[in-house]
């Protein structure tokens, strides 16, 4: 299990190779990378990501622990950036490793759903015309809640 919160850019390919090489007995590795997306109008200058330093590490560790309790994972990785990012920059990535793909896929999706609405990060979009905080979406809260619905 590893968690990194950083301002610096990261190389998703290098991170994934390093993560996969460190796993013992894992037949499946799944990863997700979030990328700064330009606005439909094409005029996004930057995305500023604020976080709550005292809480971020704890919240991510808690999220990772929950995933490890729920699925049998060989390993997991969460990287999340903060500060000023530009379009096409990687924002964050999660990677999971397991013996079989089912656990790796499910755990990666769970980690993503959880950290979308429970990790203390806030995004602001900066354009020439001004700045606007990104609104939380109901769909993200729904995506998280579905993990707790009875079958």
């Amino acid at each position, binding site marked *: 299990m590893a968690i990194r919160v950083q301002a610096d850019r990261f190389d998703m390919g290098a991170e994934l190779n390093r993560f996969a090489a460190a796993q013992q007995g894992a037949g499946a590795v799944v990863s997700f990378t979030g990328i700064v997306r330009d606005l439909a109008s094409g005029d996004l200058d930057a995305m500023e990501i*604020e976080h709550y330093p*005292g*809480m971020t590490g*704890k919240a991510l560790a808690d999220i990772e622990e929950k995933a490890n309790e729920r699925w049998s994972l060989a390993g997991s990785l969460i990287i999340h950036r903060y500060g000023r990012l530009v379009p096409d920059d990687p924002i964050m990535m999660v990677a999971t490793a397991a013996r079989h793909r089912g656990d790796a896929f499910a755990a990666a999706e769970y980690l993503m759903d959880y950290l979308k*609405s429970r990790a203390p*990060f*806030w995004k602001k979009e900066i354009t020439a015309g001004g700045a606007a905080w990104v609104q*939380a979406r109901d769909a*993200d809260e729904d995506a998280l809640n579905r993990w707790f619905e009875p079958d």
Partner: protein
Amino acid sequence: MIDVRYFAWLRERVGTGHEQVETRAATVADLMAELSQRDEGYALAFADPGAIRAALDQELVGMDAPLAGAREVAFFPPMTGG
């Protein structure tokens, strides 16, 4: 005294990210009501309680959580990570 932290648009509206507050508020909601009386910026920041989340000592809590024993309370909008 309790450390109060604000993030994102709450920080911008209040005008600071951190301050120490002397309060007798019993719960997070009581503290919010107290702070919103301070000036226009605070009133605007706390105008829509439904759009605000809170943490006590870096753990998410409900608005009815008691402040007793807490060192730090944080107010922020719903998180937009990922």
